[in-house]
């Protein structure tokens, strides 16, 4: 009898194990450790203009990736009443049919929404509480790195994950072929400080000519520097490169050659809101035409990736060599071009945080943070973009049902389609899977 009972117990154990194995294939459940709770949420990200298009592509990829089976109305209440989400703030109204999602992907069928851009700093300030305690979106897009205050002392300290690399292109327009040597940092500083000796349209003073800066060039066209709205990461990156020189001055004293849109003098509003929005050159070109400024003399700066991808926004801009290095994807990757910059995902540490000692280049991520609801959904989406190739290749995760490719390849492709490259794998530039973590 004892033997029979023992055999029955063993058989029962094996049977239950088999059933469990069939019901929940290995790695096929939603994963609270990645922020997944088996329920759908809508998550909002705001901020950067430069990263708007690429994040929209990545969001679409994530939103369409396979997750759990929705309820069919037979074994559980029909989800047609609840799915998709009908109350975005509460979310979580119903659950997946079973624990049958792929935790590598969008197991919960969350929806990532990219809010129309208002600039990196504006996006970050909402998330970290600098604009008050209210939270209108859960994560930020940024084309600049976080400040130490944003990482530690604000209301909601944040982590940033660099997922792509871009460069800031210094550009002129018209038929002006850039000088082979290009601009140096000192020349650009002097141009934006209006240290030149020429006067131009609308009483502008302090201008340089090409001949002043490049004596072998007989071109005496005057160079008119234009500014960019100061909430943008593209502004912040260029300002960091120019160090103490503000390329979008708002004081109204000095620097009076820097052009704002529709104004004879520089923008004197406290927020620089009369300067052009970043990356779209058309308003700058139109302003120059209206003022009688020759296009060959218009100097501006923009995202290399955006303007290389959208020629309508580029509007004929010619990119200059800076400090002797041509702006190309290779020189951004190896950082030899001095105005390279990373593109970032930003969220509060309470949403997702990671200890660098537990993570490594091209290794599967190890994080802490929210295990459910909107914050959990944001954590899952951030990890989706930063997981390494090994996480998605070799049968680890479901393939994209639309094209049969693995998701690492599709994420790489989405980033490239917008003119950027994944955070480079050269040297120690990755420390967090396929991303660079700054905490």
């Amino acid at each position, binding site marked *: 009898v004892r033997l029979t009972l023992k055999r029955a117990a063993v058989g029962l154990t094996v049977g239950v194990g088999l059933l469990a194995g069939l019901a929940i294939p290995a790695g096929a459940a939603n994963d609270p450790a990645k922020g997944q709770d088996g329920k759908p949420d809508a998550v909002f990200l705001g901020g950067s203009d430069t990263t708007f298009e690429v994040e929209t592509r990545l969001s679409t990829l994530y939103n369409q990736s396979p997750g759990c089976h929705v309820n069919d109305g037979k074994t559980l209440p029909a989800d047609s009443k609840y799915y998709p989400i009908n109350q975005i703030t509460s979310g979580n109204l119903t659950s997946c049919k079973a624990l049958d999602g792929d935790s590598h992907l969008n197991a919960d069928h969350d929806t990532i929404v990219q809010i129309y851009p208002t600039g990196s700093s504006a996006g970050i300030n909402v998330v970290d509480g600098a604009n008050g305690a209210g939270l209108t979106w859960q994560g930020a897009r940024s084309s600049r790195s976080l400040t130490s205050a944003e990482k530690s002392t604000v209301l909601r300290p944040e982590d940033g994950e660099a997922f792509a690399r871009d460069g800031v292109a210094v550009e002129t327009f018209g038929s002006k*072929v850039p000088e082979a040597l290009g601009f140096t940092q000192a020349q650009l500083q002097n141009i934006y400080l209006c240290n030149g000796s020429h006067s131009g349209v609308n009483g502008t003073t302090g201008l340089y000519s090409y001949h002043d800066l490049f004596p072998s060039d007989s071109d005496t066209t005057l160079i008119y520097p234009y500014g960019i709205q100061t909430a943008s990461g593209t502004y912040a990156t260029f300002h960091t490169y120019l160090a103490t020189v503000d390329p979008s001055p708002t004081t109204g004293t000095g620097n009076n050659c820097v052009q704002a849109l529709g104004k004879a003098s520089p923008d004197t509003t406290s927020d620089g809101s009369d300067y052009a929005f970043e990356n779209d050159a058309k308003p700058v070109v139109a302003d120059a035409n209206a003022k009688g400024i020759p296009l060959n003399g218009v100097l501006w700066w923009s995202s290399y990736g955006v303007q290389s991808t959208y020629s309508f926004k580029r509007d004929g801009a010619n*990119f200059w060599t800076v400090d002797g290095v041509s*702006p190309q994807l290779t020189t951004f990757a190896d950082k030899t071009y001095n105005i390279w910059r990373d593109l970032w995902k930003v969220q509060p540490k309470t949403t997702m945080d990671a200890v660098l000692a537990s993570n490594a280049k091209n290794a599967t991520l190890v994080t802490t943070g929210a295990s459910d609801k909107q914050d959990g959904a944001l954590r899952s989406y951030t990890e989706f973009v930063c997981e390494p190739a090994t996480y998605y290749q070799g049968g680890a995760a479901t393939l994209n049902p639309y094209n049969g490719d693995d998701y*690492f390849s599709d994420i790489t*492709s989405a980033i490239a389609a917008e003119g950027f490259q*994944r955070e480079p794998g050269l040297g120690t530039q990755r420390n967090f899977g396929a991303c660079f973590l700054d905490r």
Partner: protein
Amino acid sequence: MRKLRKPLAALFGAVVAVVMFGSVASASVTIPENPIPVSAGASSVTVNVSYSGLTPGTAIFVHQCKKIPSDPTFDFTKDCSILSQFQINPASNTGSGSLQYTLFRGDEPSGDQTWGCYAPGDTPSQGYTNYSTCYIRVTTDTAANNGQAQGLAFTYTVQGAPVPESPLTIALPLVAASVIGAAFVMNRRRRKTALSV
């Protein structure tokens, strides 16, 4: 009427030929040598890429790819190495010209794409797909613009260790002297033989 039939047919044929092939023949990409010689251990080689027939005043984008752009499944984000992208300004594009372009040999350099362009005898890294024929792709306006893209197939050929060359100015007189010397010796031997007989 019959007299006109032949000239009209010829004219029609010429028009058709111009319409069909005129635009294709107008844009071209060439390199001086193909297969491209590479040194045994070299991981890259710089070639002079000449182009013509491009739309002037637009940016030029050059890529190294594993698939020809005319393939209906071509996707530059997956079939070209993103790190191979080289861009020329609109103001510098007069429609034709040439540029120095560096091709990689071996694994795709970003490390995120599992293919490469290899020379005969090369062994790809594990998991990488071997492409012995790759393509130089030249297009205008944006990198994604495949409608204007021109693709040039190329292969590599490995050159052995460089052999030290002796200059002709030294080699030619030496060869001439040795030939004359040999003739002189042979002539004297013949004379000796004739005298002894």
